[in-house]
């Protein structure tokens, strides 16, 4: 099965191939800045289809990298709808299932959810959906703020076939087929200087 997906890989990934940055890593841009913007716009219209005027919906970004997606989605939604969208950031460090199983403790980020999510429709926002363990922790963390009516998941990149838990996203920016040893990184204009999604593949020839 794996070989089959690998053969399909070139169709999924955009053709831009960049020079090697790391000695043993191959780097491919799978979403460039133009497509990046289109993807964000599409996700927003998909959200509006489901949530209409967002009167009963809140967006919650998962720390640390999900909040960058949230900032873009929020700005675009507010531009389209002309109203303020209720948003919050959620840190899931204390809810992780790998506490004491890692070498180093994870430094928590800031949580600011200054509203009650009781009976609200919640859309969790993250950058990359991989094993699903972060989302599991996020669902757990969310309960501390009340019982939501419904929870959905929006992710910019879905690394399908790498899931450890039965978790799927409702809104997907881009699906990619990857191996566990590969790494997907979302880069931002504000931080790295350019909007893009990059796939790093360890070089098997070495």
């Amino acid at each position, binding site marked *: 099965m794996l070989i089959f997906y690998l053969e399909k890989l070139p169709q999924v990934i955009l053709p831009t191939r960049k020079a090697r940055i790391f000695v043993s890593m191959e780097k491919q841009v799978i979403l460039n800045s133009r497509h990046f913007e289109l993807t964000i716009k599409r996700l927003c219209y998909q959200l509006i289809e489901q949530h209409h005027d967002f009167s009963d919906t809140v967006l919650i970004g998962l720390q640390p990298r999900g909040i960058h997606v949230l900032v873009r989605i929020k700005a675009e939604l507010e531009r389209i709808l002309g109203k303020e969208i209720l948003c919050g950031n959620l840190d899931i460090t*204390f809810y992780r299932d790998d506490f004491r199983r890692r070498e*180093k403790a994870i*430094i*928590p980020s800031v*949580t600011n959810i200054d509203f009650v999510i009781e009976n609200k429709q919640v859309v969790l926002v993250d950058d990359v959906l991989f094993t699903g363990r972060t989302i599991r922790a996020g669902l757990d963390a969310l309960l*501390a*703020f009340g019982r939501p009516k419904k929870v959905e998941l929006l992710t910019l990149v879905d690394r399908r076939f790498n899931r450890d838990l039965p978790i799927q996203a409702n809104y997907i920016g881009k699906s990619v087929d990857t191996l566990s040893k590969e790494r997907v990184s979302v880069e931002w204009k504000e931080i790295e200087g350019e909007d893009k999604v990059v796939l790093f593949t360890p070089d098997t020839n070495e």
Partner: protein
Amino acid sequence: MNNLSVNHLTGIRDLTREDIELIFKTADSFKEVINRPIKKVPSLRDITIANLFFENSTRTRLSFELAEKRLSADVVNFSASSSSVKKGETLIDTVNNILSMKVDMVVMRHPNPGAAKFLSERVNARVVNAGDGTHEHPTQALLDAFSIREKLGSVEGKKVVIVGDILHSRVALSNIYCLQKLGAEVMVCGPTTLIPKYIHELGVLVEHNLRKALEWCDVANMLRIQLERQDIKFFPSLREYSMQFGLTKEILDSLSKKIIVMHPGPINRGVEITSDVADSDQSIILDQVENGVAVRMAVIYLLASKIGR
């Protein structure tokens, strides 16, 4: 820096500045957690913590217990007054018996200086010092510095005076170490008999005039007179002490700037601090108590993350 450099918290003296800043950063997150509708996180659900109090305490003990419970740890409590210590059992035996029941961490208060360090070298558990005699009380110093940082933005470059019974105070020693590591200037103030000899060796200023000390400082930390530790008379009477070193509203209002007033508790109203000062808007005594839970959660969380599976 994602890990503490120490395996036990026996004193501030062993910590680095990076350790303290890591604890503060983690405590920031826990402070947000304890202000949620559900004030609990599941991080430590497979950890058991024993609170061993060989000396009386209300605030520290409650604060530790709440911190542990809000991290979902299992908690067992022990106090010397109702235990086999009275029957002649040694400290090591008592603790090893408790550890046989699969306890991962020990929070201990003990009347003997160095008890926590002694224990940490001999038992197979993480040890948190909750006060060892007149030596150190590290979590109190951490929460004091955390409260200053919260109120003034940072500790670096601030001037802090510790007033009162410095000689018998573990809070004073831990505070001196902690504040100095964070870059603050520290002064101690009190009657000559209650200031330890050679304390200037620690790099602190010494002042015997309360008004001068208060004019110098940004923060005044008022300590209690520990009559239970004073075997001889160190000053003629509490009334005389309070006239010279008690913080009153008149002195506070006559200062050229607004200083912050702290107190580690328990307060003896009318002795080291008057009621109107303790309840004034310059006092952050109750903020200290709130921050205590968050700081202790951070300490326990960071130490627990180093326990192997």
